[in-house]
């Protein structure tokens, strides 16, 4: 089969399993590449940095959703890079209001569509970063989830406030260096664990919650599709590497994303109607050090701290994959 030049290597991996380019492993895809739309609804030419995970999260989501979609966007990198007036990357209707209200904004779109008899077949999808979701937007998101609107909320999670220059958020992992959690004589970096946002949303009793990664796009797209198809509110949190904020090689964003799941730093799962299901089981456990060393945000960590992080990961690993 002819493979388009712009299809990234991890997709090629699925196409030719036997010559897999990624860590000699094949991903258990729920979709095939052939089913993925070749229509781009997020135009190139936007102003994101090289290696940006967030823009992939949007591009893939829109491929999964199709053109019959209205999007809302929180203030943040994705809004800034995609909408320099009078240019716009979004080829679907799009509204950005403020930082903390992407979910309320989506509630308004959905309610208007219902009131005007235009809801049928239209996906209403809210985007927000981890700052706009875990922190400042949590109240608005909680309200939207609890009210039961038929919408999908996608959090592109890059684990800090990248738009303002890498400040810590409720999503920043233990030990990570940000400009507001700097290591120093009295500090080893971020001293709190990443907030467990998906379970906070799941506790609202919504029908669908999932975690995903832009490094595993077919899994992510399948989850977005499922989230949109389900009647009622759905939440997808997609791990989106940020080379600028993480101090990583822009060419390695996907590799780092895969290392995150293969080391157990993040776990991919779905919670459907309250029932949890792990959606990716790493074939072998890679030491977390392999992930940490790809990023400058962790380079100050001592062996003791790395061992501590490995301890947290082991505990989660045992619980998740036992």
């Amino acid at each position, binding site marked *: 089969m002819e493979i388009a030049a712009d299809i990234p290597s991890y997709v090629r991996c699925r196409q030719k399993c036997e010559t897999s380019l990624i860590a000699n492993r094949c991903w258990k895809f729920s979709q095939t590449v052939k089913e993925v739309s070749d229509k781009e609804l997020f135009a190139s030419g936007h102003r994101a940095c090289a290696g940006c995970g967030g823009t992939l999260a949007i591009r893939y989501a829109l491929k999964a959703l199709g*053109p*019959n*979609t*209205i999007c*809302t*966007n929180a203030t943040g990198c994705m*809004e*800034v890079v995609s*909408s*320099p*007036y*009078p240019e*716009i990357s*979004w*080829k*679907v*209707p*799009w*509204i*950005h*209001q*403020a930082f*903390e*209200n992407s979910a*309320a*904004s*989506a*509630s*308004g*779109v959905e*309610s*208007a*569509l*219902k*009131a*005007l008899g*235009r809801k049928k077949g*239209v996906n209403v999808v809210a985007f927000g970063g981890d700052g706009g979701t875990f922190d400042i937007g949590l*109240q*608005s998101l*909680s*309200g939207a989830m*609890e*009210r039961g609107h038929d919408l999908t909320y996608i959090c592109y999670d890059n684990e800090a406030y990248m738009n303002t220059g890498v400040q810590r958020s409720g999503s920043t992992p233990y030990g990570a260096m940000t400009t507001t959690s700097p290591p120093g004589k009295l500090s080893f970096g971020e001293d709190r664990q990443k907030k467990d946002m998906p379970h906070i949303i799941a506790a609202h009793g919504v029908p669908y919650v999932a975690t995903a990664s832009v490094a595993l796009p077919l899994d992510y797209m399948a989850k977005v599709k499922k989230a949109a198809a389900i009647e009622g509110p759905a939440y997808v949190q997609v791990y989106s590497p940020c080379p600028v904020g993480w101090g990583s090689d822009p060419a390695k964003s996907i590799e780092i994303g895969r290392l995150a799941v293969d080391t157990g730093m993040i776990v991919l799962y779905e919670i459907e109607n309250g029932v949890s299901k792990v959606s990716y089981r790493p074939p072998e456990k890679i030491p977390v050090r392999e992930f940490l060393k790809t990023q400058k945000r962790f380079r100050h960590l001592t062996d003791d701290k790395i061992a501590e992080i490995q301890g947290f990961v082991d505990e989660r690993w045992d619980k998740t994959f036992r």
Partner: protein
Amino acid sequence: MASWDIMHGSRAVAEAVRLADVDVIAAYPITPQTHIVEDTAKMVADGDIRAEYVKVESEHSAMSVVIAASGTGARTFTATASQGLALMWEMLFVASGMRLPVVMVNANRALSAPISIWNDQQDSIASRDVGWIQLYVETNQEALDTTLMAYRIAEDAGVQLPVMVCMDGFVLTHTVEPVEVPDEEQVSKFLPKFKPQQYLDPKDPMALGPIAFPNVYTELRAMQQQAMDGAMSVIEKVNDEFSAVFNRSYGNGLVEEFKTEDAEVIIVTLGSVAGTIKDVIDERGDSKVGLLRIKSFRPLPEDEIRRALKGAKVVGVIEKDVSIGLGKGALASEVRDVMYGSGDSKILSFIAGLGGRDITLDSVRGVIDTCEKALSEDVETVHWVDLKTE
């Protein structure tokens, strides 16, 4: 058929929302706006309003929901007061910057701290620069009528700005007056179904709320001011058309003059206290004192104000707000700005009715006494009415 009833101001607003056939209501309860939220919720529950009622978790989300719904092509309504207005302040700029015809009733209430649930107008006055049209009403009937007119003004192709109808909390919201509820058919003639010029639609994608760089931001703000300037004549036109259909109007829609013609003292105010002032003027039985009630605070009808105050030797501005640090009421300082260079009338600021303190007939008599004293001698330019000094 139009019908008469005795009702609270809040109920009068709810009737207007029903008659306006809104599509989306989002609101969060706050005293003294609560009855508006409750009455419209019941109307939706009974099928009297065919709208989506979004039970939001905050005023910030209430405004966010109506902005998005309006951007999606719906006619929208919300109501708030005081702390609620302060919480949605960020979003007020977004509604006006996006040029969305959102209509909101603000039940004017004092701001914390100290917390006060009672009436003054500091909340909306402090939001004077958010780019919303602000219309202050005197009676419950005017609250109903102005809410209907607000949609016509907001949705006018040349205006496209949100409108805040400001009604005094408790004084109007919780007080009963006879109100005529207009006939539905007549209302639908005056205010036809909302036809947005553009809206979020997958068939014809557009973007609302992109980032503007310094090369365009100033121009977009200037366009908002142009729209405000244009709104002036639209407000007058809508007031006239309302009058033609319903036989009621409120001055020229922008200001209402009461016995100003030969007056050497003119009191200027906003909102319901105008009723008390009219009573005091009436009881005097002379023509020396008049009243200019400013209905439209934004846009501020400068020409109308100048014309009305032209003959006055003393202008006393009674208002329920104070700009701390400036040391006078915001309206007084604006009236002074408007009058700069036209005549030499003295402009006095009377700060009154803060945090729900009644502005009584005696309070108004005292204000007028001070103004008359100013005709022949020097008086302080700022007065805190009924201030306890010990």
